[in-house]
């Protein structure tokens, strides 16, 4: 067991767990976006930042990737943390304002406005779909491509992958594509951000006995 302080409370947690796990276990809320149980921690969205250390040595770290250490002093809602978090939410909102997940987080943190240029991206590169595909579906059909501004997620060469089973797992976990999948135009109902697969529900006649994660699936509604 490792002894540490979270928000001034002396606690002891199991060795090897992350700050996020410890905090959640003890009931301290930390918002997350790119974190999902069953997938490896990634630290992409930076929403889960917490402050560790004291005074001049204090720094912000992503709690989902940072393992607990003996004597560590963690603050999950300090002024600095909140300021950083709100900024991250604003940036996320700017790039993907249509995402229900991001909207919910924003309203929870009382972010009503964002000061950046609206982008309407269909992907925030959180990597959930990539990890879902690799770790849970054991397919590795999609991955990151390019870098910097042109970084994107998709299949190699933008063609339908041989190893993709059209499970729809990537769409299920995608925080950005919820509106995509509830889009009013059938051809845009395909989640563009996560994968170059056809929406399973649109190909239903070909994949009759397929599982569909969408509930409710508006793409199916459109078909009707």
């Amino acid at each position, binding site marked *: 067991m490792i002894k540490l302080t979270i928000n001034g409370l002396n606690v002891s947690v199991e060795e090897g767990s992350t700050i996020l796990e410890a905090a959640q276990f003890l009931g301290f809320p930390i918002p997350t976006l790119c974190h999902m149980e069953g997938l490896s921690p990634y630290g992409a969205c930076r929403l889960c930042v917490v402050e560790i250390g004291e005074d001049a040595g204090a720094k912000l770290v992503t709690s989902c990737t940072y393992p607990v250490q003996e004597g560590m002093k963690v603050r999950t809602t300090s002024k600095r943390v909140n300021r950083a978090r709100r900024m991250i939410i604003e940036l996320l909102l700017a790039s993907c304002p249509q995402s229900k997940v991001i909207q919910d987080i924003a309203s929870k943190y009382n972010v009503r406005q964002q000061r950046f240029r609206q982008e309407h991206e269909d992907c925030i590169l959180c990597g959930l779909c990539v990890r879902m595909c690799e770790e849970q579906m054991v397919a590795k059909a*999609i*991955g990151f491509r390019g870098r910097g501004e042109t970084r994107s997620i998709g299949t190699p*060469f933008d063609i339908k992958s041989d190893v993709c089973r059209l499970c729809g797992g990537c769409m299920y976990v995608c925080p950005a594509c919820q509106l995509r999948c509830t889009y009013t135009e059938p051809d845009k109902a395909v989640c563009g951000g996560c994968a170059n697969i056809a929406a399973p529900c649109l190909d239903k006649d070909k994949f009759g006995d397929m599982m569909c994660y969408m509930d409710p699936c508006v793409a199916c509604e459109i078909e009707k």
Partner: protein
Amino acid sequence: MNPEVVHNILEKHQQSQDGLISILEDIQRSFGYLPSQALQQVAEESGRNLVDIYGVATFYKSFSLKPRGKHLISVCLGTACHVRGAPSIAEEFEKSLKIEAGETTEDQEFTLETVNCLGACALGPVVVVDGHYFPNVKRTAVAEIIAKTREGIDKIEVKTDQRVFPIEVSCPRCNHSLMDTMNLVDGHPCITVTASFNRKHGRLSMSCLYGSYNIASEHVIPPDIVLNLFCPHCHAELSGGANCAECGTPMVPMIVRSGGVVQVCPRRGCKGHLLDLSE
């Protein structure tokens, strides 16, 4: 694309447990770009995942998934070059070659790319063609650079690059000068040694200009042949240098008159060399 070539590259790297990047570099060197079938073959034969390979291939700018032209023109758009008018140079290249940056001309001769900094800011705006630097390029010089490249850049490099300088060398064994003032290569006295390969022996004259790879030989030397070089005076073989960084062949050492050692790779076509000047 020849699958055999890719297979050989993979075989070579399997033994040394080399990483993916070295494999992709070798493939790019063989084909000039990364053909999609080659990536697929790498995935199949090395047990890696195509997604990972594709990710690496698209991450690094030095890898190209599209066939590239014979000559690569890189226009620097870094800050220093930018303020000195590099964007208009890039535009001029685009106009003259009738392609956009990142594209290849239809005749597969030129690929134009823009880079963010070449680390030669004092020379800006700088353009690099096949590894040759053109400093302080002006709009009007663009046509000239293209024409020179078409002619063959190695031929003119000696005159345009002022950093090329002549060196005088002597035999490391007898310390007799190897310079030949009677025969000129690149307009300078040449370095003369005796070269032998495939039971042929003859005089080999090398340019004494550091940075020039021009030679004159009695016999036609086929590419990729490793020459044995001898001192024409004491007839000792010039050998015992370090291994060439490019191809691994043991290099040929010669003493530089002003102090120091120059080593050159004896494999025909290899430009590997080492210049070590002492004070």
